[in-house]
């Protein structure tokens, strides 16, 4: 009895005292987070809903009724969707190779991490040079294509974005695939499934999370990308982020710029919600 009450008191003390000290430890980060993130972003988005001192949706109405903005939003979605499909397929493929078929997983992951951590501007500079006239890529492709100059096109943007987003997809997928119990796949093979059947019916459904999380991450990164479209797309292929950037120069347009930022966030979230629902029904129904 005395022992139990002692343990109870101890637990009580650890909950009450522990929580209070936990809160104290969290305080500096909470303050920094509030002052540097919540307040500025809140202020910015509130600007989107205010015009001449009154709360209004006028900024959003202007975006939706201007063909230029609609085209930019549609282009952003198109480029991001294409990037996501290419990155998901090739990223999954490479992650599968790294986890199940390579002999030096750690080294290969390190290489992927290096490409992710090098300045994005430098990587984009590499692509700008590669896509310019007279470049090494043009020399290599000259026997097959006779005018290889894709700089300032949507194709160039997509290539830059795939290179930027691939490492993220690979890391997410490697994380998920590494947790799959390999004995399940062996059991399926023992029961007569071919390697491909085992993959389709077992590994793929079990790694559904990689497809959802990785795909969403890649899509969100592409939707908000700025450097790739700015340097590889040129003035004619602007995406939402570039448009926001160019509006900021004129403080009279800050309301529209803020509204575009909000639209970007909402559009991305909306499309991702549909994507997650579709993938879950398509692949999830086949779950073992």
């Amino acid at each position: 009895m005395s022992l139990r009450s002692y343990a109870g008191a101890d637990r009580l003390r650890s909950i009450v005292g522990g929580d209070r000290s936990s809160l104290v430890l969290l305080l500096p980060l909470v303050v920094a987070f509030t002052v540097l993130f919540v307040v500025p972003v809140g202020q910015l988005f509130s600007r989107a809903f205010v015009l001449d001192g009154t709360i209004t949706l006028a900024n959003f109405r202007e975006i939706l009724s201007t063909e230029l903005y609609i085209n930019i939003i549609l282009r952003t979605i198109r480029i991001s969707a294409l990037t996501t499909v290419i990155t998901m397929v090739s990223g999954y493929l490479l992650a599968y190779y790294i986890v199940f078929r390579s002999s030096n997983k750690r080294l290969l992951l390190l290489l992927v991490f290096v490409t992710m951590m090098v300045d994005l501007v430098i990587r984009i500079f590499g692509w700008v040079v590669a896509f310019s006239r007279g470049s090494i890529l043009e020399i290599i492709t000259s026997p097959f294509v006779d005018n290889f100059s894709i700089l300032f096109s949507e194709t160039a943007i997509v290539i830059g974005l795939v290179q930027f987003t691939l490492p993220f997809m690979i890391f997410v997928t490697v994380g998920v695939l590494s947790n799959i119990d390999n004995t399940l796949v062996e059991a399926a093979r023992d029961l007569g499934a071919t390697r491909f059947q085992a993959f389709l019916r077992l590994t793929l459904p079990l790694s559904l999370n990689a497809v959802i999380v990785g795909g969403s991450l890649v899509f969100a990164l592409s939707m908000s990308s700025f450097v790739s479209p700015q340097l590889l797309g040129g003035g004619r292929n602007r995406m939402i982020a570039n448009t926001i950037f160019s509006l900021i120069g004129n403080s009279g347009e800050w309301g529209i710029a803020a509204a575009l930022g909000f639209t970007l966030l909402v559009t991305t979230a909306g499309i991702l919600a549909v994507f997650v629902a579709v993938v879950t029904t398509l692949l999830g129904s086949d779950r073992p």
Partner: protein
Amino acid sequence: MSGLIERVLWKSAAGGIFLFLFFPLLLVVLISFNPDGFVFPPSGVTLEWYVSMLNDSALIDAFLLSVGLGICTALITLPLVILASVGLRNEGLPGQQYLENVFLFPLMVPEVVLGFALLIYFSSLGLTGSTIGIVFGHIMFTTPFALQTILAAMKGVDTSIEDAAHDLGAGSLQTLVYVTLPMIKPAIIAGAGYVFILSFTNVTMTLFLVGSGTVTIPVEIYQYISFSIDPTVAAVGAVLILVSTSVVIYMDRVFSVQEISGF
């Protein structure tokens, strides 16, 4: 036989994707030594672009500023995150799971929006274009990444060892400094490297925060190549590739890459 074909197919697919990932980096390094600049094949090897880089004081100043900013950001972000993760690993805390996710919110907001928000906010505080403003921005931007790495390590700490230290008479602070932190030292080193690189390489958000005397190296390069492409940028690029690679290799010696990335 079919096994062999399968192996060759896999190896070439993986090799092709790796080639794609490294292609822009290899090209930059190649150009930095090419006397003919962007013209291939090269007629020899030169260091002239490196010399022209060293003679460009704007590039050197920007590089040094970025190194300093990266170190400052790591020195402020890490203590904040370490303290917070000691608090956050306590699962009895009301709303602990919720709080953990809230701190990851900045990851979901586009960098252009973050930069724009800070630009307006800082202009009302008189911090536009200041070094302090850039550090503040980088602290906010790097916190979610560092939190993922360090909180994961903190949750893996065996609390019975800390209880033992308490029983032997150590105070809370002593236990933290002499027992808990040494146990997660690899995560702290890796987290510091991660924060440094994220700050050192950030361009989109930083573009909104720089002023005339406070241009960071990625922003300097961005502005440089927006107007003209010049092989000097390739020399800078080769140096930056070396910096990032060295930091990553150093991080990997203490911590596995998969754990750093937090996925």
